[in-house]
């Protein structure tokens, strides 16, 4: 894992619990964190900085779908901060739960586990995503028979960027040949037909 601090949003009405979890997170030296803490949903609405967080730690009494909607991040990883007993169905929507009785080590373990696997899933999803506008432009150039250098010049990119776009295109479509891209482009109407 890189040393880039992990951006975490904490939503918990109790100031004592909020300060407590922040203090524990600071103790975990192996995971540098940048914490943004608020008391409730209304505060989230007025402060947009929470939207970039990679991790959410929230009081399970606040509606998780509402939080996700407010953050416009349906895929953010969520931990529940437990201070009483809750039924399992509420917790199912969370990726993990921290209890106020957890030790720093237990919390560290949970964070590490959560931070190590989610990114893979995300990049996997990306690979099957549709093409970006730029990638479509590049396909059109490729099937016209342009070289990487020519494409770079006409789109004002570096050759290196063009090559990396082409790699991504091949990865997303599983098509490596120009003849194959031509078929794709016609089917998906990337080129004008006479």
């Amino acid at each position, binding site marked *: 894992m890189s040393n880039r601090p992990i951006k975490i949003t904490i939503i918990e009405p109790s100031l004592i619990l909020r300060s407590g979890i922040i203090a524990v997170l600071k103790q975990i030296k192996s995971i540098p964190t940048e914490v943004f803490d608020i008391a409730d949903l209304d505060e989230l609405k007025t402060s947009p900085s929470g939207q970039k967080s990679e991790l959410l730690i929230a009081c399970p009494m606040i509606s998780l779908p509402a939080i996700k909607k407010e953050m416009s991040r349906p895929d953010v990883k969520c931990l529940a901060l437990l201070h009483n007993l809750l039924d399992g169905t509420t917790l199912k929507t969370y990726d993990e739960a921290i209890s106020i009785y957890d030790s720093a080590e237990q919390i560290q373990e949970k964070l590490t586990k959560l931070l190590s696997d989610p990114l893979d899933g995300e990049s996997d999803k990306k690979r099957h995503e549709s093409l970006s506008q730029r990638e479509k432009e590049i396909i059109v150039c490729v099937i016209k028979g342009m070289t990487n250098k020519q494409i770079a010049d006409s789109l004002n990119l570096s050759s290196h960027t063009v090559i990396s776009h082409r790699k991504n295109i091949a990865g997303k479509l599983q098509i*490596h040949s120009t003849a194959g891209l*031509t*078929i794709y482009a016609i*089917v998906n109407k990337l080129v004008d037909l006479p």
Partner: protein
Amino acid sequence: MNGKYQESDSMSRLVSENYAALLVMSRFKIALGFGDKSIGEVCRDNRVDGNTFLSVINMSDNALSPEALMDYLHCSHDYFLKYRLPDIRRKLAQVLNEGQDELNKAVLGYFDKFEAEMRKHMNYEDKKVFPYVKALLKNEPAEPCQLIFSKQHEQIECRLTEFKNILIKYYPAQSTNEMNSVLFDIFNCEQDFESHNAVEDRLFLPAIQKLERKNKRPA
């Protein structure tokens, strides 16, 4: 192919256990209708080198004859170039959607490029590699040629796989049954080609290298 077959095993058992053996048989010009004869008997009846036949079937060097193997490979090339690929192209042209000329031109263009690549590779073997091996067998001076089978095989296999995937993922086929039938043919062709390549990479190439080493030794 599973297990090791021997000359005494019955030919019909081999075929029912492994229908891909039919392709091997036709390339050795062995006719059907062999009743309950053993593999050895059928090979003798058809004047086929039994060891080479079993080497190909078992995919193991069974004291094979390079001449017999070359005849086999030559027939196999003919099968792909004169039968398999033209057949797929004809069927494909029939099932392509009407009124999508540009797209269909691109699809057939892809196929033709692939076919040309395969033809070039196989012609090189027929016209350069086989004469070279024949010269080696007679211990005559031979013009050395490049024996880079496996890399080319891999490239051509990838081309065919890509083509198949493009048809599956992107071609908006209207007649599913017909398109499926073409796809089944392509899946089959892919497998045929892989096993053809395995014979060249695992049996033919080592046989050539053995000959080369033998010829280099002072008499």
